[in-house]
């Protein structure tokens, strides 16, 4: 019976994988782990260059509040232009 | 003599109104989930978002103890609590009527009064309240947090006054 089972459940095992103090880059295929400096209100992803405004849920617990609009919008527009160009070359994917 | 007597300290502003305290109280004492059996109860003003946990204050000069005609209620000084001896209690409910906090309850199922017994020193409401709207602390520490908050306000006001004064000069 399930309730007699010894040991930890998957959820309990995975609890160890939690990374307090870090946030993930909001660029979904990047998802790099970012560790903003304590109290900082911005963070830049060293991998993909996205920039984010940072808020603090509590001390030592950062959260991405939103993008730095100018920066990330520019990145988006560049990526879109590049994709459109490729698409013209290869036809739609 | 060793100081003793932790008390249940209640911080209503922190209460989220979830009533888990009521539930764990009734399960711990009676093995039953039923808020009607809980020694602690959240009073709510829902249209204002105001929630206030109410429980026994374990009064020093407890009115329930004084009024009890058969002396079924006594103070247990080891845990600084007021206890009911149900073998003596006659179920007259005088204690229920006299308690200024409404913290003495009457259970209509078992026809018995009941009140907070601090779970023999490990209050379950405190143990389960994640926001610490109820806490179990030494009696003389209850006022410390408030002292500090008030002091902070005063110093802030002082600092502001000083700043204003230097500005005007």
């Amino acid at each position, binding site marked *: *019976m*399930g*309730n007699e*089972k010894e040991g930890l459940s*998957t*959820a*309990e095992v*995975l*609890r160890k*994988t*939690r990374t*307090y103090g870090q946030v*993930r880059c*909001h*660029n*979904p*295929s*990047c*998802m790099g782990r970012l560790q903003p400096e304590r109290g900082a209100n911005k963070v830049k992803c060293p991998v*993909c260059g996205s920039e984010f405004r940072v*808020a603090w*849920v*509590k001390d030592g617990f950062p*959260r*991405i*509040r*939103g*993008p730095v*609009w100018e920066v*990330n*919008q520019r990145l*988006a*527009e560049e*990526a*879109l232009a590049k*994709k459109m160009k490729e*698409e013209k070359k290869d036809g739609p994917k | 003599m060793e100081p003793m007597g932790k008390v249940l300290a209640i911080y209503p502003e*922190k209460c*989220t109104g*979830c*009533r*888990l305290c009521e*539930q*764990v109280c009734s*399960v*711990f004492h*009676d*093995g*039953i*989930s*039923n*808020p*009607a059996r809980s020694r602690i109860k959240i009073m*709510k003003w829902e*249209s204002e*978002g105001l929630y206030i946990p109410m429980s026994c204050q374990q009064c020093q000069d407890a009115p329930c103890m004084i009024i009890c005609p058969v002396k079924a209620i006594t103070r247990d000084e080891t845990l600084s609590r007021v206890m009911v001896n149900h073998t003596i209690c006659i179920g007259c409910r005088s204690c229920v009527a006299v308690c200024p906090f409404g913290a003495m309850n009457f259970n209509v*199922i078992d026809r018995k009064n009941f009140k907070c017994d601090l779970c023999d020193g490990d209050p379950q409401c405190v143990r*389960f309240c*994640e*926001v610490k709207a109820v806490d179990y602390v030494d009696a003389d520490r209850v006022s410390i947090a408030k002292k500090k908050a008030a002091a902070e306000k005063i110093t802030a006001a002082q600092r502001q006054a000083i700043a204003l004064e230097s500005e005007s000069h």
Partner: protein
Amino acid sequence: MALNRKIAYIDLSTGKIEIKPIPINVRKKFLGGRGLDAYLLYNHTKKGCDPLGPENTIMVSGGVLTATLASATARTHVMAKSPLGGLLGSANMGGFFAPELAWAGFHHLVIKGKAEKPVYLWIHNGKIEIRDARHLWGKTTTETQWAIREELGDEDIKSLVIGPAGENLVRFANVMTGIKNSGGRTGMGAVMGSKNLKAIAARGTMDIKIAHPKEALEYNKHFIEQITSAKVNQTQGTLGTPFIWGATNSWGGVRCRNFQYNQELYCDDIEPEAIDEVCAETMGPYHMAGCFGCQVHCRAKYKIPTGPYAGAYDEGPEYTSQGAFCGEPDCRSIETLLTGNHLVDQWGMDNLETGSIISWAMELYELGILTDKETDGLELRFSNDEALLEMVKRICFREGWLGNVLAEGGVIASEKIGKNSFDYLIQVKGVSNLHSDERATPALALNVATASRGSDHLRSRPAIDLYHLPEGVLRKIYSNPVPYEGLLSSEHTEYVGKPWQVFWQENCYMAVDCLGICKYHTVFLGATLPNFEDWPKVLYYNTGLEFTPRELWDVAERCNMIERLFNLREGLKREDLKKGDMLNHRYFDEPTRRGAPDVVGRVIDREKFKKMIDEFYEYKGLDKDGIPKPETLKRLGLESEPSHLV
């Protein structure tokens, strides 16, 4: 104990009330909550019944764990045939109603017929009374609840009520309890309204014996720690659900201007921290509230700081309100957000559907499909906050041509508006999509397309798919309790492995809904939250019921199949745009234009999407048309439905 809670059959036409126990074999097959409701719906309605007619049946229930010492057993479930999509109607809400109903002696209510005049039900310690509600008709959701308390003289009464929208048969009117807890989707409020049922009031002091109280207490402590230590729930407990909207908008997963964009730019004023500040200002630093027994406390309390409703108290706004009153209509004002949220709460209408349908109308107006003639001169453009709030009122009270038409829901409205208006309606099975944009996330697209109650994120969304978790972690989660050896991909833009994830989540969410606990306590937003392996313990300690994780999975699969059977009976066809497992063409044809670098330029690939559906059907044991194979029904013990066990 929890298992002796009863089921009540109430016929409002005749006034007849029957109270019966719930047999243990029924519990073993369908547990309770949504699962048992689905069984009851299939058994107690006839094919093709009018959703707003007396022959429709509305179920109200708690889960099998409701009011026991499992964490947050607060959920109330409501089910009926939906007046919005004509298929399964189902809504689930937090608050305090279901536990009170359980203490009053009941887990399930089955309400049929139609009362001659407005009535409400008064359920008190095993007794049910039908009472006059003529004096409550017209009252808002909170006015109704407070009036019932006053009338019956008990402050502890919890009620499930409808507001003016439900009375006016707005097809997406909701059912509400407390300040803001809403059974929002699929128009359950209109079903109540059509039965002249204004409210269900409950109050009880009946014991629920815990099977193993010591163990239940200790395990609950452990369970709560697992739940509240998750980062996602700590954020939730500080900022409420707006943080989800904020995070999703940040990478470009939020529907904006109906479906023109996938991100709302420069919306700092309505980001969670901005809302949090207003809540803190108006309610103080500790401004979070919790549903029954829940330590996540994700509900913010606020007072509207400015505008015509300044000073009004409310709770939320949840992320659906941000979508409804900000992203979709492209508005950015916190006053609009808080006011809009307040209006739908008070009037009892689904915020999601309301915002979505108005945004659709805004796009139609800008395209010239709707003109000043239909809007009675209202300039229904995007970013027009005033027009947005005005339209909420017109829909609720069916004012003007357009208000009355939109109150019928998107599909009927599109037929009345005509032209190609339907092409712009972002819906599945007649139910509007969440404020999210799934063009960059095939797994989520599959979820909205196949959700049983119509487009929905709470039926099967593998939200953790966005976290790019290592494949090993995904495998740990998704190959339990049923082994899965197929592909899994950490890549959110992928199509492989996703059908299994959606299938797994569908069963996970069904299990949660049968148990009666909240989805923030399972694998929805956090990968490390409890699931199948953890629940048998909670179930055993609290009720004494012995289930293996696999057996719970089987119950969930069975209950999902009953929902499918209902939908098929009522006309579900795989590729039908109005009644099928199909997405609006814009998902396939219009590439995303905003968001993170790898989110821009995305569409859902039609062929791959079809293959995902095929694979998903295979896991469910359906044929290519989405109809269950005979062996599937046999395996799930559903070969002789309707079986009328209860």
